[in-house]
């Protein structure tokens, strides 16, 4: 069983929501990522999503755009992201996923990318600008290296779109919580819970909610409904408040998010 499947199976048995922490590779400093992965895994993250920065991150809001720009300026490349993942893998056994756009991995070579990523200990891949209908080549490369390829559904998805994502995805289904781009938000979209129910009809894969997830209330509202959440921009915002002490910020933010309800 893959690390991703094993993690969700264990958490499902415990009736716990998986918490996936997103970090942009090389943010806030080029060499900091392995230590932040370790901090996140020790502070309640059940899996880590590592963003390989791209010059034109279409699906991302201001926070991840800014982190990506900064990381690219610092000199992050696909090769360096693979090295960072490999170093991070030595610190933890939690699942690691890469999130990036199609062009950087196309330039690196899809097959080579999947192979090197798998060798580095990466378990899954998320490519927001790749629709299921265009994914056959990457699917073959991912399968050959035994890494999962995750696809998205959104509140605007048609039934056919949901079916296509569920047919094509492995690992989990990434359920977009809002109509829009990444970025912390106060409220969850009212269309989210019905969307999760629809997705359940199409797949037995775990359903993970992301985009806008930033508060302990969001996690509570989704416990028992979704299988996991991804926290991205809110975590990067926390890091940005004290970038010189990024690991402490990661620990504090994730521990607060994992806080059990009092009384």
């Amino acid at each position, binding site marked *: 069983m893959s690390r991703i499947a094993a993690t969700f199976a264990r958490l499902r048995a415990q009736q716990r929501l998986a918490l996936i922490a997103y970090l942009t590779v090389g943010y806030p400093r080029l060499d900091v990522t392995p230590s932040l992965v370790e901090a996140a895994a020790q502070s309640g993250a059940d899996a880590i999503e590592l963003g390989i920065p791209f010059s034109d991150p*279409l699906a991302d809001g201001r926070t991840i755009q800014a982190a990506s720009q900064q990381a*690219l300026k610092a000199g992050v490349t*696909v090769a360096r992201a693979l090295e960072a993942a490999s170093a991070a893998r030595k610190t933890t056994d939690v699942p690691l996923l890469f999130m990036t756009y199609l*062009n*950087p991995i196309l330039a690196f070579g899809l097959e080579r990318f999947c192979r090197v990523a798998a060798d580095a200990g990466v378990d899954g891949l998320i490519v927001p600008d790749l629709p299921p209908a265009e994914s056959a080549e990457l699917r073959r490369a991912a399968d050959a290296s035994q890494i999962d390829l995750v696809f998205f559904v959104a509140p605007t998805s*048609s039934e056919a779109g949901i079916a296509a994502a569920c047919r094509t995805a492995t690992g989990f289904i990434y359920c977009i919580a809002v109509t829009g781009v990444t970025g912390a938000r106060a409220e969850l979209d009212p269309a989210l819970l019905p969307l999760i129910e629809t997705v359940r009809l199409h797949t037995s894969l775990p359903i993970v909610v992301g985009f806008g997830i930033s508060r302990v209330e969001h996690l509570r509202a989704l416990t028992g409904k979704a299988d996991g959440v991804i926290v991205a921009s809110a975590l990067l915002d926390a890091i940005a408040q004290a970038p010189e002490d990024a690991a402490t910020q990661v620990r504090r933010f994730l521990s607060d998010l994992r806080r059990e309800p009092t009384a």
Partner: protein
Amino acid sequence: MVAVDELTAAFGAAVDDKVFRQDFDYLSRTFSGRPTPVYRADRLTEQAGGAEIWFKREDLCHTGAHKINNALGQVLLARRMGKRRIIAETGAGQHGVAVATVCAKFGLQCEVYMGVDDMARQAINVYKMQLLGATVTPVESGSKTLKDATSEAIRDWVTNVRTTHYVIGSAVGPHPYPLMVREFQSVIGREARAQMLTETGRLPTAVVACVGGGSNAIGIFAPFYDDPIRLVGVEAAGRGLNSGAHAASIGAGRPGVLHGSFSYLLQDADGQVQATHSISAGLDYPGVGPEHAYLHEQRRAEYVSVTDEQALAAFHQTSRLEGIIPALESSHAIAYAMPLAAELAAEDLVLVNLSGRGDKDLDIVRGATGG
């Protein structure tokens, strides 16, 4: 994804609908000022000393460029789809002005994304859009130019897709945009083909058009695909292809994915999209429409490039010899057409798509020529 699926279906239904086509044709005539003439450029012909040089006068369209054709078509489509809000990206501001113009005519809310650097370079067009009732939203991210304005418009679209239609200005973006832009721009080539036959009794030997994203080029090329004539796309070589400061995606790029299409792309070894340069803001885009990539690979069209300096020289020549001040974009096509005409015989015809007029470029030209 649902947005492009919905759009594909609506576009397919619209082009098959006689009423939609009648509306488009009627407003093209009465609002945009179509048909635009073809014109024999006698003194440029004499200067080149070879084939006759002809212009397709898209500079005479309402708002000063071919951009109005696509803006009109897409806004009509948005109305059919029940969308009340229109967004667009713009580089030089020509597409933004065209979209703001059509939105004013139909009373639709309009928001145009524009890089802050472009807003500074094209202040008059910013003011025009505001006069027309549009909101111009500055884009501070990335390189602060056209590609970033496009990214920001796409982010808006995915956020507000239920109410909003995104009018892309060039033959780029995800399907069905490149096809849709070609459909609405191919009125240029259909008119030009018939007009050349009427005026000269024959087809041009070559059709020449500038290529940034490639909408005016695809519009004039497409109706000539089955004719035994040369199609030439002219990209912006900026300060020279070896300088790194250019926008020649086909000439110097590699296949890649940006803004939902797979085509030639200016990118570094790691797949990051590179900054571009052209004196002409309308050609300053790192990608190119996927149909141009196809025409290039099929060798149905030739793609060449022209530097800032050559384009400026053609700008001045055309102004003085023909009494027409061309857009800097179109000046690239003229700059290539002159030596091409010189190589050809007197009975040959070179048709240049004069895609826009140069009023918007006066400050840039004055700055570049020192007074």
